[in-house]
């Protein structure tokens, strides 16, 4: 624990060193020989302003893809993790299937899953198969991220000490009751930060759906850049992605903090 004086001094040093560092960085970049050209093609304010409205509109599709995919992933990944934690030889086939699934979809590059599903599934020409590229993009993201997120959940489940399950079972709770009320609540709380990490990844990977032709933020900025021979629209899209990620990160911090506070707070 530092005293108040040491704390103020620490803040001052941090501010000073930050200012010095970024000033040096800015000087180095703006004095590079190619800087005027880079500034014109990547940081053109007028271009930024004119392309932003359309890219923002296209970005809503990214948000939509993200929200739909995330809702499914959260549930499916938990199911997959639970299946993989089932004890006993009876459940071996289900565990094996779960392992095969996770291995496959973590191994194949996301862009390939998107391409295979997005181009392949509609090509089957089955009347009940949707033709929407966005639909298949979302399905591909769900398949891939369910594999990743189930691993996160599984790590959480395994981090809960077996004595917790033993305590629950010894009170007469069934395996499922123990899992639902004792093991999973603790497991999920512990993995909230890594879960967020995967969701930031998912948020960014929504841009891959543009590969199928869905006009989301990246595709839209590509269109703009091609039309104007200027790359500023990419910067605009990047700004939007970052702007969505930061609130999500702070929200997770808040969730973790709230849980810790509640556990440490004295009862009313």
């Amino acid at each position, binding site marked *: 624990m530092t005293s108040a004086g040491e704390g103020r001094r620490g803040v001052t040093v941090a501010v000073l060193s930050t200012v010095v560092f970024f000033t040096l960085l800015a000087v180095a970049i703006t004095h590079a020989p190619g800087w005027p050209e880079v500034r014109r093609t990547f940081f053109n304010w007028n271009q930024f302003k004119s392309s932003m409205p359309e890219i923002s509109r296209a970005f809503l599709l990214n948000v939509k893809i993200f929200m739909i995919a995330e809702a499914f992933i959260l549930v499916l990944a938990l199911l997959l993790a639970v299946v993989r934690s089932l004890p006993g030889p009876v459940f071996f086939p289900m565990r094996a299937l779960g392992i095969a699934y996770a291995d496959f979809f973590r191994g194949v590059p996301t862009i390939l899953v998107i391409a295979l599903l997005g181009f392949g599934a509609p090509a089957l020409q089955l009347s009940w198969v949707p033709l929407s590229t966005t639909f298949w993009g979302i399905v591909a993201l769900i398949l891939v991220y369910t594999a990743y997120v189930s691993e996160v959940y599984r790590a959480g489940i395994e981090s809960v000490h077996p*004595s*917790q399950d*033993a*305590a*629950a*079972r*010894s*009170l*007469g*709770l*069934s395996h499922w*009751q123990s899992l639902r*009320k*004792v093991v999973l*609540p*603790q497991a999920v*709380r512990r993995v909230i930060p890594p879960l967020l990490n995967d969701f930031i990844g998912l948020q960014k990977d929504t841009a891959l759906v543009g590969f199928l032709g869905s006009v989301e933020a990246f595709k839209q900025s590509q269109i703009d850049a091609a039309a104007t021979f200027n790359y500023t629209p990419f910067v605009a899209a990047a700004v939007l992605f970052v702007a969505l990620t930061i609130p999500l990160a702070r929200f997770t911090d808040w969730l973790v903090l709230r849980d810790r506070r*509640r*556990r*440490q*707070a*004295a*009862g*009313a």
Partner: protein
Amino acid sequence: MSEALVVDGVRKSFGQLEVLRGVDLAVEEHEVVCLIGASGSGKSTLLRCVNLLEPIDEGRIVVEGLEITDRGVDVNRVRRRIGIVFQAYNLFPHMSVLANVTLAPRLALRMPHAQAEAEATTLLGRFGLADKRNDYPDRLSGGQQQRVAIVRALAMKPDLMLLDEVTSALDPELVAEVLEVIRELAAAGMTMLIATHEMSFARDIADRVCFLDEGVILEQGPPEQILSEPKEPRTQQFLQRIIEAGRL
């Protein structure tokens, strides 16, 4: 008197290591039996076997006339009648004290919420924990946590309580409050099988003391006899070490 628990020729191995090598033990209703013996002698394993947390390799265990080691026995139903308290408390850290105590009655006995809370509150009050009902386990001392763990087991109204070195993880000044709770249970007629290192407590509370050595009950009898005039050389050695450690 009828027998609350019969352990008959129980054997249990973990891999190559045979931890229980034919244990025979009978506990009568309202009887308090203390298991003593060195670490690794099989005390904890025996308790975990009685609660079906560990499957046994050989022998049988009968609780209140029901052979619980029989195939096809509903283990959840059996465990509801047998309370166990662990050395490390094993409270659920994400739940308040009240939720810890009411969880099993609500889920396993399907007791209505209000009734479970009322009964839990009464029990907590009886053991001096009424003001802790809304606290989370992190906030409690070790002694308080262990008392909550005992209350949590009692909330299922068990016929038999198994206590697995419940004071071993506690700071010395917190041991007394937990032992006091166990004394009260004994006075109320609870049938208990207690693994313990507290020899003076065993002498005080036990109707019978069993000395476990390398997976068998080597010697048993009234506490004054086992703890003061043991017949077996192994028991004498064990107690000698305890005395040298200043624990008797």
